C-alpha cells in the first residue's frame, strides 16, 4: 500500500471500481485502488460525492493541501475500527493528571531520543564537506551502526530516575536555562548534544504536562541550532519560522512536517485509537492532535533526515523555491522532489528487533499506535520509540 500524490490539476474520478486521474492535458491514468493507502492532493482537482463514497468504502483518507503546499484538511472516512472501551481508556488517561503526565513524559523522551540521534549521527561524521556526510545508499538500510557509547549515554540520561524530582514547572526552567545557555554564539555539535541531553534528563522531573512541553520546546530549539553544522554553509537557517516560513529550510520543515502529520493520522485511522485525544499536545477542537503527538517522535528520523540529504547532496537548489511572495515556498518541481524523498524514507526497511521481521519506517508509526493501545488497555506500559540502529 502506497500514498498516491496528485500534483497536477484535473479530476479524480471513480470509474470501473477503481480510481482514475484525468489531468488537464487530457491524459487519463488508472490508479490501483487496492494499493492506495491514502491520497494526497496538491493540485487543483475536481471531485464529487461519488468519489468520496468510494474512498469511504475503500477506507482511503484524502488529504488536501493548498496552493502553497500547506495542509488544509483531510477527508477522514467513517471510522471502521470502533472500540468504546478503548475510547473510554483514552479519555481516562487524559483526565487523570498522573496517567497523562506519564504518557506525555514518555512521548517526549521518545522525541528527545530522536533529536539526539540526529545530532550524534552528524557529530560522528563531522569532518568533511556536507555532501560527504551523506553516505551513498543511506536510504535503503545502510545506515551507520550506532555508536554504543553514545547510545548508552543517551538512554541512561533519558531513563535516569535519580534526577532531582523537586524540579518544578516553567518558572524554574529559567535558572536552568542560564546554566545551559552557551555564551558562544555557535555552539559545537558536541555542546548542543550535551545541552539537549541535560534537558532530556529533566523530563522525568516535570510535574506538569505544560512543563514537559516546555522542555521539549527548548530541546527542539537547541536541536535546530545544530543544523548549521549539518547543512552546507550556503543554506541559511537561524531559527524556526512558520506561517509563512521565511527561508528555504523553514519551508522544507513546514512542508515535510505536514506530510508526516497526515501520515500519522493515516496510521491512527487504521487502529482503534481516536485521533482527537492526545497527551503531550492539548486536545484541540480543530486538530487531530494525537497525530501531532506521534509525529514529534518521527520528525527527526523521517523529515529532517530527508531534508539534510536532499540539501547536502545538492539535489535541491534555489530554483526549487519561490520567494516572490511574502515568505518562501516550494515550487512544483521542489514539491515533487521532496515528496519522493519522503516517500522513499517512509518505505525504508529495517529489521525490527522485537518482532524479528522487516518493517518499514511507516509501519513503525503504526506499531507506535499499537503500543499506545497496549498501554491504555493495561497490557504493557508504554515505552516510546527509540531508534536502535
Amino acid at each position, binding site marked *: 500500500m502506497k500514498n498516491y*500524490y496528485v500534483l497536477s490539476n484535473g479530476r479524480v474520478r471513480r470509474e470501473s471500481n*477503481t480510481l482514475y486521474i484525468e489531468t488537464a492535458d487530457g491524459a487519463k491514468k*488508472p490508479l*490501483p*485502488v487496492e*494499493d492506495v493507502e491514502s491520497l494526497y492532493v496538491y493540485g487543483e482537482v475536481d471531485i464529487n460525492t461519488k468519489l468520496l463514497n468510494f474512498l469511504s468504502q475503500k477506507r482511503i483518507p484524502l488529504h488536501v493541501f493548498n496552493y502553497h503546499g500547506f495542509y488544509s484538511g483531510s477527508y477522514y472516512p467513517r471510522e471502521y475500527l470502533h472500540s468504546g472501551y478503548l475510547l473510554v481508556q483514552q479519555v481516562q488517561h487524559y483526565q487523570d493528571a498522573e496517567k497523562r503526565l506519564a504518557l506525555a513524559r514518555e512521548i517526549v523522551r521518545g522525541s528527545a531520543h530522536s533529536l539526539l540521534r540526529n545530532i550524534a549521527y552528524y557529530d560522528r561524521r563531522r569532518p568533511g564537506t556536507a555532501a560527504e556526510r551523506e553516505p551513498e545508499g543511506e536510504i535503503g538500510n545502510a545506515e551507520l551502526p550506532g555508536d554504543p557509547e553514545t547510545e548508552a549515554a543517551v538512554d541512561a540520561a533519558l531513563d535516569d530516575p535519580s534526577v532531582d524530582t523537586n524540579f518544578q514547572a516553567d518558572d524554574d526552567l529559567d535558572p536552568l536555562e542560564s546554566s545551559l545557555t552557551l555564551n558562544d554564539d555557535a555552539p559545537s555539535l558536541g555542546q548542543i548534544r550535551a545541552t539537549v541531553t541535560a534537558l532530556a534528563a529533566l523530563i522525568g522531573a516535570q510535574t506538569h504536562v505544560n512543563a514537559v512541553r516546555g522542555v521539549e520546546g527548548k530541546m527542539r530549539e537547541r536541536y535546530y541550532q545544530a543544523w548549521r553544522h549539518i547543512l552546507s554553509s550556503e543554506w541559511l537557517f537561524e531559527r524556526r519560522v512558520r506561517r509563512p516560513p521565511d527561508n528555504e529550510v523553514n519551508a522544507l520543515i513546514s512542508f515535510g512536517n505536514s506530510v508526516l502529520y497526515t501520515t500519522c493520522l493515516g496510521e491512527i485511522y487504521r487502529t482503534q485509537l481516536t485521533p482527537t485525544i492526545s497527551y503531550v499536545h492539548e486536545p484541540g477542537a480543530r486538530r487531530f492532535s494525537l497525530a501531532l503527538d506521534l509525529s514529534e517522535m518521527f520528525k527527526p528520523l523521517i523529515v529532517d533526515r530527508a531534508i539534510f540529504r536532499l540539501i547536502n547532496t545538492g539535489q535541491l537548489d534555489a530554483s526549487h523555491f519561490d520567494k516572490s511572495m511574502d515568505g518562501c515556498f516550494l515550487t512544483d518541481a521542489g514539491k515533487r522532489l521532496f515528496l519522493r524523498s519522503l516517500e522513499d524514507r517512509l518505505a525504508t526497511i529495517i529489521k525490527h528487533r522485537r518482532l524479528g521481521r522487516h518493517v518499514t519506517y511507516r509501519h513503525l508509526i503504526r506499531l507506535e499506535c499499537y503500543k499506545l493501545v497496549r498501554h491504555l488497555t493495561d497490557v504493557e506500559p508504554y515505552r516510546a520509540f527509540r531508534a536502535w540502529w
Partner: protein
Amino acid sequence: MYIILVYDIGEERVHKVCKYMRRYLPRIQNSVFEGELSDSKLAKMKAGLEKIIVSGRDSVLLWVMRDDHFVDRQIMGVEKLPVDNFF
C-alpha cells in the same frame, strides 16, 4: 508479494479482465500487470479473476515473488507505461 501477471484471454472478456486488474496493479504493457500486493489481496484478486475467466479457454500466468529485490527488471526499447505514484 511482488507479482508479475500476464494473460491471454478470449476477446469478449479481455477488456473485463483488464478493468478488473486495474483495481489491483499497475498495467505495464498490454496484458501485463506488475506490482506489490499483500497475501490477502492476492488471494482476493485471484478469486475475483476466477469468476471472470473461462477456465477451459483463458489463460492467466502469475509469477509470485516474496520481494522485488529478487527481480532484476531490465527494459529494452521504450517503457510503455511507467509506474509512478506521482501524478
